[in-house]
């Protein structure tokens, strides 16, 4: 990011539509809060940039480390926030993060039935479907059916655990390490870890055929 682009980012991009009521009110609320000295436009811009820097790739790095380093995995399961910070990733002020490990016997999938709580300090904004009423309604009563909709059919012998997040406790799934990855390094392993596998609606990608 070059400094000279910063000023431009205070101004919305050229609109491709007339501003909606929502957009007008957001602008008005921000303008008033700035006038009253409660926040500055620069703080808002930096907060947006900070959220944009939080991505599932950060979660993938954490999982890849856990796959190659059992001691790290143990620390991650014991205190995820502290373990994540070992990788130089800061997850912000909010909420405890709890890591849950998927194995051959247990599959975890995460939801927030009440709202949209998500380890956003690590993974960034949650996807739309995660916040949708239908996902929140159904995954707790029919997790296998929902997973099937996402293309994941689990062996009936695998126990499914649905983790319901709260504002104070947010979950990160450690997907099972795919077979055939024994020779892979951390970076290559991380490329197999998708956002959806960190939520538990998918497994980690299998390694590409060689």
């Amino acid at each position, binding site marked *: 990011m070059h400094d000279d682009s910063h000023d431009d980012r205070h101004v919305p991009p050229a609109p491709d539509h007339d501003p909606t009521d929502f957009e007008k*009110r957001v602008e008005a609320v921000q303008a*008033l809060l700035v006038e009253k000295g409660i*926040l500055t436009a620069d703080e808002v811009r930096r907060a947006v940039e900070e959220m944009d820097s939080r991505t599932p790739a950060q979660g993938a790095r954490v999982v890849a480390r856990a796959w190659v380093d059992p001691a790290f995995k143990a620390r991650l399961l014991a205190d995820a926030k502290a373990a994540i910070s070992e990788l130089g990733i800061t997850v912000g002020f909010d909420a405890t993060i709890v890591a849950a490990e998927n194995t051959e016997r247990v599959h975890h999938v995460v939801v927030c039935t009440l709202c949209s709580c998500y380890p956003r300090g690590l993974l960034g904004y949650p996807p739309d479907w995660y916040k*949708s*009423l*239908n996902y*929140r*309604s159904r995954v707790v009563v029919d997790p296998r059916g*929902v997973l099937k909709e996402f293309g994941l059919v689990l062996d009936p012998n695998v126990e499914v655990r649905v983790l319901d997040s709260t504002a104070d406790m947010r979950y990160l799934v450690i997907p099972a390490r795919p077979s055939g990855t024994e020779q892979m390094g951390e970076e290559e392993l991380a490329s197999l870890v998708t956002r959806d596998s960190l939520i538990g609606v998918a497994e980690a990608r299998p390694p590409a055929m060689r």
Partner: protein
Amino acid sequence: MARVHDRGGWPGAGPIDRFEHPLSWWEKRMDAITTLLMTPEKRVLRVDELRRAVEDMEPAAYERCAYYERWLHAVETLMAEKGILTREEIDRKVKELDARP
């Protein structure tokens, strides 16, 4: 009967729409404004207050509103409760911004 936000097991839920729209410039601003107000440095809002203001929305409005429209509604409600901003002030500011050339 469960309140409108308490969706777990809500009857009649259909297939999950997996379309993901990229957040707009304004949605990101709404997110940023709200989270900034909740930082330990500012402490203008707390996350539990935000949730309460979202959960107190009129049920039909809750279901109709897009995600960040709920946040906007909650922030407006809480700013009014705390005597920081009134809805009238926001309405006036909207008109003022609208009148820009």
